[in-house]
């Protein structure tokens, strides 16, 4: 149950709520550990695993590097120096589109599997 779709459809609302959104992201703190939003997606399910297998090799390598660096920082109870925090321009989604494609494929397969034929006569 999310207001995100409602808000995304109205650009004036997006602009209005942007500062609040930025405050939330900064408070969440994942950027201070060098992570991007898509790194946080839980990978313990088949859909995400399939999407990860479709990542280009370079993206996959970078993702693993960021996660390992963040794990090290978490163990040390440290954060990165401010210069190395993820910048907002860098924090674009790379896994989201692939994940949505995989979800759409699975949905289509489920729909086709439960198809009922309506006879014309």
């Amino acid at each position, binding site marked *: 149950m999310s207001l995100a779709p409602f808000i995304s459809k109205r650009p004036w609302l997006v602009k209005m709520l942007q500062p609040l959104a930025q405050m939330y992201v900064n408070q969440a703190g994942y950027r201070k550990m060098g992570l991007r939003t898509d790194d946080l997606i839980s990978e313990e399910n088949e859909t995400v695993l399939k999407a990860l297998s*479709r990542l280009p090799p370079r993206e996959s390598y970078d993702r693993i590097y960021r996660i390992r660096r963040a794990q090290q920082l978490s163990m040390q109870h440290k954060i990165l120096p401010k210069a190395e925090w993820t910048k907002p321009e860098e924090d674009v989604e790379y896994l989201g589109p692939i994940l949505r494609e995989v979800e759409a494929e699975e949905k*289509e*397969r489920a729909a086709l599997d439960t198809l009922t034929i309506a006879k014309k006569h």
Partner: protein
Amino acid sequence: MISRSALTRGSQLALRSQGAAKLAQRGFAAVASPKASYEPTTVAGIKVASRDDQGPTTHLAVVAKAGTRYEPLPGLTVGLEAFAFKNTKKRSALRIVREAELLGGQLAAYHTREALVLQASFLREDLPYFTELLAEVITQTRYTTHEFHEEVESVIHAKQAKIGADAIALDAAHSVAFHTGLGAPLYPTPSTPIASYLNENSVAQYADAVYNRADIAVVADGASEGALSKWIEPFFKELPSQSPDPLDSAASKYRGGEVRIPKTGSSALVIAFPGSALGASQPETAVLIGLLGGESGIKWSPGFTILSKATAANPGAHAKATNYAYSDAGLLTIEITGSASAVRKVAEESIKALKSVVDGSVSKEDLVKAIAKAKFDLLSGSETAGVGLVHAGANLIHGGKPLQVLETIKALESVTAEKLKTVAKALLDGKASVGAVGDLHVLPFAEDLGLRV
């Protein structure tokens, strides 16, 4: 996969339809006139050949000039074949397959040395759906990276695993006979390096170069011309009229040579000579094939042709003579497969028998049998949906002139033992192309058989 021997029968196929109406009416055995043959027309700049027997099913195919002869890099033709009916911009591969299944249709993609065929077989009333589908497949396939890794690569590996010594030997004979073009392997073996050439981007580029109005033909067996012209025009609108990057193909030149490949398992030996091309008037080749024979049309009888007698004396080997007819060249082959020692003996005996043909010892009975077989192969070729389809399409894309079947029959009947002797002598005196695959310790060299390479 269509049988290679069909290439000989289809060579003189595309007739002007004379007997369609008569055939529909005849109720009892009349003098044999060929079944309604493909009518070539042009619809919206696309070459179309159609034939209608008023049956309940239709076979519709797009035949593209994208066989292994035309591929700029190894593996592109098989990659394009494996990418057929995958995700397009409008619908997913799963949807295509499920919808075709719901309609009771069958989809197939296969290639020969000169053509790539995307074929759909379905009930007659589904023509609009499958015309749209074929047009979508050739213009709008997405060629995605994940499909290449998840589906195309695994399919190609699976097909490569099924390649046997006979296919490798035939490819070897073609490669020494023609070098590039027709000499490219029909299917790359697992040890052929194609990984650096084959990826989704190179396949997409190849598709752009190959799918255009100039290089494809649409062939329909079982659809009316009116229906075809109605549905082809709107669906094939997006097809470009010219290739942005036309693929050049040099004229084939026969060279000859010998190649020997070690392999475990059964052995194969292919002895090839220059044969007759599609549309070339060389009836002696067809009669020579009938004389050599190999495969009997009669069950439980090996037959009494030259190769049949050789294999009957040496159980453990199978032999077959074929003429592979291409648009500008042909290859007359004797293919022998089996255990290495039996293959060796059969090869020696068949070359001895061929030399006896040159010495003029062809009996009248053998000549009559050979001519009858050649006539039957020619006439029966037009009756099979699969074979005739590819040849009608191949004829159109290569701009070949249709040969008159009746004239060819007359030419076949006028072949004499003397003409056969001349042709056989020319073959044996010229350079042969020999491919030996298997146990090389046993398989003979071309020189041992008495052939020039």
